């Protein structure tokens, strides 16, 4: 995992929590509880009150914008570099998006009320969450542009690469349903697109199990959005 190598943060720990000095971490630690969340679990419904803030140590969570029809489209993905519902620390009562666990993993979660108290008591935590929110905003803006402007094929490549960065394996247990939702296309369309990448020798694909077999060539096929978000994330964690 290149991010982790860049800043010396050990794998298996949330990078935001790892950035906090011991005194700040001590404000959170008594209330943090590790939870393992299965693939497909709903962590947060859009528009509903925020009960918990999650700091993932492994796995991946996606945040979706939800339309009246109930359909959603990806706006951001969060792994060990981030947090879900962090704005609860500033008193935001309800979540803007729906958060779904896409790859099983472990997170430390804290009740929103306890997190808010810690943010009020610590300028360090407040500052980190404000700057992390800016980083996440960058990702959301990039996704908005990408969803509107880039080909579905390029977006699929972006998905595979950014998921690979959060997973610890070249084999990704992404369901066809998940990719269909992320890309805003039908499930069979996902199969057609994935098969095309397989025919080119970039991936192996079978009923939702994706294995990356030629990452350098995938990186040539992906839109600029993958590198843009990754660069911002690397800068964030190498300068904080």
């Amino acid at each position, binding site marked *: 995992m290149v991010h982790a190598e860049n800043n010396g943060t050990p794998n298996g720990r949330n990078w935001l929590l790892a950035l906090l000095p011991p005194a700040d971490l001590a404000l959170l630690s008594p209330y943090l509880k590790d939870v393992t969340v299965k693939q497909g679990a709903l962590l947060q419904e859009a528009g509903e009150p925020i009960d918990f803030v999650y700091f993932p140590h492994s796995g991946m969570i996606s945040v979706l914008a939800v339309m009246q029809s109930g359909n959603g489209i990806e706006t951001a993905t969060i792994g060990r570099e981030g947090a879900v519902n962090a704005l609860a620390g500033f008193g935001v009562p309800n979540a803007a998006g729906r958060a779904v666990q896409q790859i099983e993993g472990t997170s430390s979660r804290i009740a929103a009320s306890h997190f808010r108290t810690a943010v009020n008591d610590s300028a360090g935590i407040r500052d980190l969450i404000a700057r992390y929110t800016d980083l996440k905003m960058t990702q959301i803006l990039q996704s908005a542009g990408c969803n509107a402007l880039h*080909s*579905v094929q390029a977006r699929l490549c972006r998905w595979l690469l950014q998921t690979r960065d959060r997973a610890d394996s070249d084999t990704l247990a992404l369901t066809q349903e998940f990719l269909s939702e992320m890309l805003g296309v039908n*499930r069979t*369309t996902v199969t057609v697109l994935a098969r095309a990448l397989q025919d080119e020798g970039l991936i192996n694909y079978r009923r939702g199990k994706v294995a990356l077999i030629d990452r350098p060539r995938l990186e040539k096929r992906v839109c600029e959005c993958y590198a843009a978000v990754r660069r911002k994330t690397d800068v964030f964690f190498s300068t904080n």
Partner: protein
Amino acid sequence: MIRYFFSIIGGRPFNDIDGLELPDIEAARAEAIGLARDLMRMEPERQDWSSWSIHVTDEKHQEIFDLDFSEAV
């Protein structure tokens, strides 16, 4: 649930070996229409889709229906 297979006939043939579990033929028709629309949207510069269709079969390779792309516009 029934597993339906959606193969593309036409410019870029695609033989569906994965299939999709769906409740009934109505859901299969919706999937075929959605697939045709996705393909047309992904290639807006192509004008003529008249020779393209989606061939839907079941697990016994029996034909369920054919959907011309013109029906999905």
